[in-house]
């Protein structure tokens, strides 16, 4: 990661100035770092409840960005990117778990029989949320980003406001609506909903 550090800082600066190319280059770097960190956290011993996605995102930032430029604005932008990627990481994660659940037991007898016995988990719910968020984005892009940042990256209202460059009050209003709307979507009877 050492060589990536300066690179990420520079990309962030370019990205803040609206350089889409920089964003394209930033995404894979941030994504892989986030995924690695997230997996590590998820695989930690049970009982570690201090786990917060902000910590993950923050740690990813520290690992990727140059230490000597802790520019809060850069960080805010970084968090914005990271939130979307975190969503992707976690949804991928959930999707993979779903696929493991459905099959692939053929290799189970190898090397260990400590089989993966799944307790009911929230991965299905998470996938449903992802679907609903996509529909929400069609209607209101900003709302879906708020949810991403709040739920997937664990940012608070103020942090989200900084990223979106709007007032906290606005963020709060978006959040209220998005949450109610998503809840309605996800509890609605019908083919697209999941329990």
């Amino acid at each position, binding site marked *: 990661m050492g060589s990536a550090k300066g690179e990420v800082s520079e990309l962030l600066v370019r990205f803040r100035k609206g350089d889409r190319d920089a964003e394209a280059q930033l995404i894979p770097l941030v994504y892989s770092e986030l995924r*690695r960190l*997230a*997996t*590590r*956290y*998820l*695989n*930690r011993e*049970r009982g570690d*409840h201090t*786990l*917060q*996605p902000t910590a993950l995102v923050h740690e990813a930032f520290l690992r990727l960005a140059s230490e000597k430029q802790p520019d809060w604005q850069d960080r805010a932008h970084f968090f914005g990117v990271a939130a979307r990627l*975190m969503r992707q990481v*976690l949804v991928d*994660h*959930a999707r*993979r*778990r779903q696929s*493991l659940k459905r099959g*692939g037991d053929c*290799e*189970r*007898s*190898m*090397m*260990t*029989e*400590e*089989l*993966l*016995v*799944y*307790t*009911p*988990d*929230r*991965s299905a*719910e*998470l996938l449903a*949320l992802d679907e609903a968020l996509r529909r929400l984005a069609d*209607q*209101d892009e900003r709302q879906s980003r708020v*949810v991403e940042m*709040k*739920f*997937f990256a*664990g940012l608070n209202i103020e942090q989200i406001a900084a990223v979106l460059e709007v007032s906290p009050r606005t963020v*709060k*209003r*978006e959040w*209220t*609506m998005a*949450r*109610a*709307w*998503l*809840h*309605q979507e996800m*509890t609605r009877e019908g083919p697209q909903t999941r329990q």
Partner: protein
Amino acid sequence: MDKQRWERMKELLDAAAELPPDRRSSFLATACAGDESLRAEVHNLLDHHDQADSFLTGNAVADLGESLPLAEHEPTFWPGETIASRFRIINFIGRGGMGEVYKAEDSRLHRFVALKFLPENVAQHADALGRFQREAQTASALNHPNICTVYDISEHQGRAFIAMELLEGRTLKHAIASDPLSVQQVLEISIALSNALDAAHTRGIIHRDIKPENIFITTRGDPKMLDFGLAKLHRGDTSAHSQATISEAAAFTRQGVTVGTVAYMSPEQARGETLDARTDLFSFGLVMYEMATGRRAFSGDTSAVIFAALLKETPQPPSQINRAIPLQLEQIITKALEKERTERYQLAAEIEADLERLRRAPQRFPIRSEASTDQQRPTRAWLRLGVAAAIATLLAGAVGLYKTYYNRRAGPSSGRQSIVVTGLENETGDAYFDSALKDSVLVQLEQSPILQIVPEGAVTEALKRLDQPADTKLTNDLARKVCRLAGASAVVGASVSKNKAGYQIAVNAMQCDSQGYIAKAEQQSENKERVLATVWKTSADLRHGIGESLQSIQDNYVGDGATTASMEAFHAFEKAEELHAKGDIAGSIPFAKQAIELDPNFATAYVLLGHDYVAMNAPDLRDQAIGKAFALRENTGGGMRLWIEASYYGAVTGETFKLIDALKRWGKLKPNDFPPHNLLANLDADLGDYQKAEKEEREALRIGSASVIPYDNLGWILLESDKFDDLRSLFLQASAKGLENETGLHHLRFALAQVTDDTPSIEKEIAWSETTSDQMPGVRMRLERQITTGRKDQARASVSAAIKIAARSNMKDMSTGVLLNEAWAEALWGYEKEALEIADRAMSSCKSPGCSVMAAQILAMVGSSAKAEKLLRNISSRRPDDTELNSISVPLVRSILEYKTGRNEAALRAQEPLLPFDFGEVAGVTAAYVRGLAQQQLDKPQEAIKEFQAVIAHKGLGATAPERVLAYLQLGRSYAKTHDTKGSKSAYSQFLTLWKYADPEIPVLKQAKAEYAKLQ
């Protein structure tokens, strides 16, 4: 939905949510006046807002994380990901205490592997990782079939991982849980694993964490031990001390480490003491216990309870849990579980030997355990036998197998009833009957395929446990106790008494655990001379009484030919046999002759005499005696008859294929005899089929692993087929059996060191040879070294030394062999006169065809054609049916004769009969070397190059041959002819390097130097 409406909903919802619940409806009704659908939608959202409760108030990471217990966490890597730029993840297999396991493809070597990622804390100890790496690789280097191979240890994204053999099957833990193991399975798994442990321990690797989870049973049923040395790494242990102590037990529990982790610890491990290999033996004992009983030896709900139990308590005897467990297995497990290390088994090899013995032991009478048979110690005659190169020498070794007919069991071990034979009650007062009668009963009973006789050693052992001296007379009561202790099911006793009509012989079999008789037999003999024959008949009747079919008794009967009706003849024979086994051949001959005089139809005595003559190197007398035995063979039983046939085809006629056939039949008839496999292996090696040879010899080793012979022979087979790593493993195995100081193995180590150019080992072995009282091995080693390095003067001195030693110790034939080896080298070096002299001298003392043909080879090479021809005719007429001689050795000499007279095409044609056996032990590298010379003369340097390269490539086979070094020189010459100056120079310079310290006046060396100078 249009944007405006959406924004409006946002505002309304936000405002309504701020209000107290009872005012919301009226607020919305007012705000949405006239737009009922808007009101309904916002109201609906408001309801969801109220119901949403904790919805989305947490965060996704926590949601996912909390729903996963440790073992169900997500795999870190995904299918398709590349690890360390080499392994492509195929899928996640699972998670064990030691980390995540994936199936992956090694893109470099295109094979599937298992990748095990170690927990993160492990990767942080760089030294620990390094040490683990060394240990794991050492364990893998053993290439043991029962140790999971580690291919690589590396890191990916800061996580240490192990790439290892991908196994399919299940762990032993799972196997035990789902299905209790049979005694047979327990034995087989335990034997394999103790062998694996032994191999690792010999290399100084301790497992430290043996438990059923770490043992894998593949779908083919082979057990594999996983994770050697990993335990030490896992617990971050940097000292030699154990990882867990009692004080840590509580910590373990607190940390939620499964109780299973402490349940397989040794007491010293629990106490936190320094560990050695014996800790593994304790843990292994626990695993055996669990396999045998389906339960853990020490169990408890907490680590502390288990610790207390394993330090203080004796586990419940396995047989109380599982009645099927033989006493001997229980004893083995108990001994492994001794709390004091010094009381325990000291070596895994000991456990293996005990288990092996038990596996080979026969089944018992209905209820109680399988019998132990004490592995017949090889007789001295066996041990004296070195590498068997010629059949004559081999069959000298077979004399030991005579013993096997009288003292050891043969035939399939399953379904046998185990018996203790007590002494014979001699009620006649005539000392004449004292010793021989028990032997006679034994001889007859041993022929039975349904009986297994508990050997003397096991009886002595049982007596010791009963605090009785070894020579205690076995009364009925005592015999029954011994019988039970030895795990047998019956006692056979016999008596002879005098009455008016002559002698009364009675033989009976009693049950161990009751007073009841199983069978009784009685017969009357009119006179003293017929007593022995009557004992056989009576014993045969007893066999019938026990339940053997008459047909079986007839097939396996000690009758008039296999042994003798004459007590005197039998006594004489016994004496002869005993002396032969001691190596006192000269002493044995008169007794063997006496036995034959007393009973001229005593076939076994003839064959023993024949083998005496084999050892004395007296071929005419040998052929006469074995020929007589062969003529009488119809009178003898199955195994004995095959032994006679093998002796005849091997020593007298040399009909290799008939011999092979006899040996195969013998191996089938008596699956527990190792000589047929050993002999077959040697024949296969002679004929160049090293694959078959190895297979047979491994079988011989499996059957007779207490003897050095199969180790020795297998060693040469591996060396000659260039399997040097396997050979090194064999050395370790032999050392574990306490055989490391056997002369043959030292010679092998020396040969290996020669091949691998390992000067320190060469010197070490030569130094060893100087410490032995027998000087011959040292002389031979030195001579081999001198021959391969071109030290002519020293070589000649060695030969003189060998002659002197041989003269002192009456081993003239031995010195002849040494002499011929040296003469052959002299012939190749260009000392034709000297070679001729030596060959002439050796020829006069040659008794075996092998010796004569070697002399002929030398004579041919130095151009003494007429003499060589004469010798060849002589050999062929004496041994017209000898396969190896007529198909390999003689054609080779003919080829040399043709080559030396300039008929190079004829020289190549002459070799045709031997080509199927090329690069076997008989043809050696000589045939190819001679072909190379002929091709050179034919001006076909390309063909010559091929031949010389083949000579060089057969490293092991040519280990001590002068041809191998000279092949470099010849290669240089051939390359020069193809105008490949570079290749030529390189070959010359290799030769000159190998002969750096050679005596400079050796003609071939002088020529080489001159030729090399011209090339420059």
